[in-house]
């Protein structure tokens, strides 16, 4: 890997000083009347309807504050009036790119309350579909990264290879974006014939896609000069703001819920590596996500060969009444740590569901990180933080 073996030692300190110096420079310059630029809800750089109010001094951002709420659908209130199967359809619309990954923590929380465990085969297939939705989510990120920087071609590669993964998910679950395939106690159906062979072929295509993106984008000098040392988030600030997923690992925190937090899923059956990066700048975040996509293809390859046979659904009554209690389960979603705090009162539906979505915390750091940054870098930093609007606004 040509990029990693270059010396990265004191880069973080250098970049951190640079971004702090930007603060100092701001109040030293002559006080010109700043311009308030409104990067509005329909701006092409935001994945959906996020509005950023930025006060500029020339090209430099003095103060920037995202204002969200344009996409608020009130999920937590809706979840209180729905039964458990109905909430699973609701829940996979939060992070609509990696939608199967949203259902899993909610179902695991309900299973924890009912202390029912899905049979081994169901756990295996759940993990495979989880990693497939991760690939679908992050591969779009890699393509979209290019568009944010101005390169038009990577996004078409991303969509071309993402189609294969979406066809796989649709073949197994019936829905491309909203599979709604997870049930308390197991899965709705088993895999159709020929699905395993097809997945292996698609995984090979995905790996060539990752190499292509690495050559086209990451190896590119302009891309590196645009992202190295930009939007640096040191370790303790990342922890305080509750960043999660690739953003946290990019600031050097070695925390991956799949490995450190035991869940009734099949991650421990495959060996894969958790990538961290000392820099904490935009490049580190994007680079880690690229490696995670490769790891995901490895996980799927290993798990595909070792699917145990057996029932797909545990013994669960048809009308589900979850016993009283509270449970919290969070998994390593493509965007970060997504968790559900389910409080149930023994009725058909949950009493209260707190949805902890990853992008809400990832974006709450924006006012801190966007200070003293140039206008084009607003887009770069936000692209590398990688949020989905449904995740923020719920």
């Amino acid at each position, binding site marked *: 890997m040509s990029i990693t073996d270059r010396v990265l030692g004191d880069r973080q300190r250098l970049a951190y000083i640079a971004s702090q110096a930007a603060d100092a420079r701001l109040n030293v310059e002559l006080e010109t009347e700043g311009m308030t630029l409104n990067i509005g809800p329909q701006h092409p750089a935001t994945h959906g309807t996020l509005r950023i109010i930025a006060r500029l001094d020339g090209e430099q951002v003095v103060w920037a504050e995202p204002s969200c709420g344009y996409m608020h659908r009130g999920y937590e209130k809706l979840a209180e009036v729905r039964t458990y199967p109905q909430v699973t359809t609701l829940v996979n619309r939060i992070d609509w790119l990696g939608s199967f990954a949203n259902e899993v923590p909610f179902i695991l929380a309900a299973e924890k309350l009912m202390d029912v465990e899905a049979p081994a085969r169901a756990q295996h297939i759940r993990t495979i579909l989880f990693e497939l939705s991760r690939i679908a989510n992050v591969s779009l990120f890699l393509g979209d990264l290019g568009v944010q920087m101005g390169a038009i071609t990577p996004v078409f590669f991303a969509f071309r290879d993402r189609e294969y993964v979406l066809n796989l998910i649709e073949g197994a679950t019936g829905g491309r974006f909203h599979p709604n395939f997870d049930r308390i106690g197991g899965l709705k159906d088993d895999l159709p014939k020929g699905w395993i062979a097809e997945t292996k072929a698609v995984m090979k295509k995905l790996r060539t896609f990752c190499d292509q993106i690495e050559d086209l984008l990451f190896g590119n000098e302009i891309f590196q000069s645009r992202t190295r040392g930009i939007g640096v988030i040191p370790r303790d600030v990342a922890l305080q703001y509750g960043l999660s997923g690739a953003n946290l690992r990019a600031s050097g925190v070695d925390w991956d819920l799949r490995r450190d937090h035991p869940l009734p899923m099949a991650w421990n059956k495959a060996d894969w590596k958790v990538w961290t990066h000392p820099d904490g700048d935009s490049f580190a975040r994007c680079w880690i996500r690229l490696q995670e996509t490769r790891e995901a293809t490895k996980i799927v390859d290993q798990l595909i060969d070792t699917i145990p046979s057996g029932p797909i659904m545990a013994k669960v009554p048809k009308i589900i009444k979850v016993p009283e209690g509270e449970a919290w389960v969070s998994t390593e979603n493509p965007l970060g*740590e997504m968790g559900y705090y389910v409080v149930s009162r023994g009725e058909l539906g949950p009493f209260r569901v707190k949805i902890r979505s990853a992008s809400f915390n990832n974006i709450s750091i924006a006012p801190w990180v966007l200070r003293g940054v140039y206008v084009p870098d607003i887009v770069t930093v936000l692209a590398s933080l990688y949020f989905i609007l449904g995740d923020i606004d719920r």
Partner: protein
Amino acid sequence: MKAALGDRVVDSFHKDDLWLRVRTDAWKSSMRTLRDTLGFHYFSFLSAIDWMPSPYGRGEDDPTEPPPVRDTTIRPGYAGGDTRMQVFARVGNPVSHVSVIVKVDVPDAQPTLDSIHDVYAGANWHERETHEMFGINFAGHPDLRNMYLPVDFEGHPLRKDYPLLARMIKPWPGIVDVEPLPGGSEGGDDE
């Protein structure tokens, strides 16, 4: 854990996750000790629960029959609690990967709590969201503007006594309206 927090912990509960309930006035100091002495640097989230069961049910009752009676007793969940609203936050230790959920009661009379945005910077947005959804205001919070809802929105949606309008206006199609056989049934066994 109990040693470090001492008498501030009122109640605790352990079932493959750890819940702690802290005295209302010791909320900020206990969060600070959690972060500094016990190393819980990772701020996951902060929110609130309204323990009063909703008077509207799931909007699926038959308008013809009399509205069913619903129990309105306030029963707190794990680690007890005696007020209607509780704020809970979850913080984690990035090294030992252990996390804890800290609960605190919010006095019913005037729901205020002191803000912990200077202990955990991430709490700023979470407190704003909890304020607009539950009406709990956080003393010392820099700007408690609405996070999602328009500025002039009155009412706090996530409270249980706030009706979900979508389900109020539209009659529920699930109400069984199969009219009986004209002229009573001749005793045919209904399949």
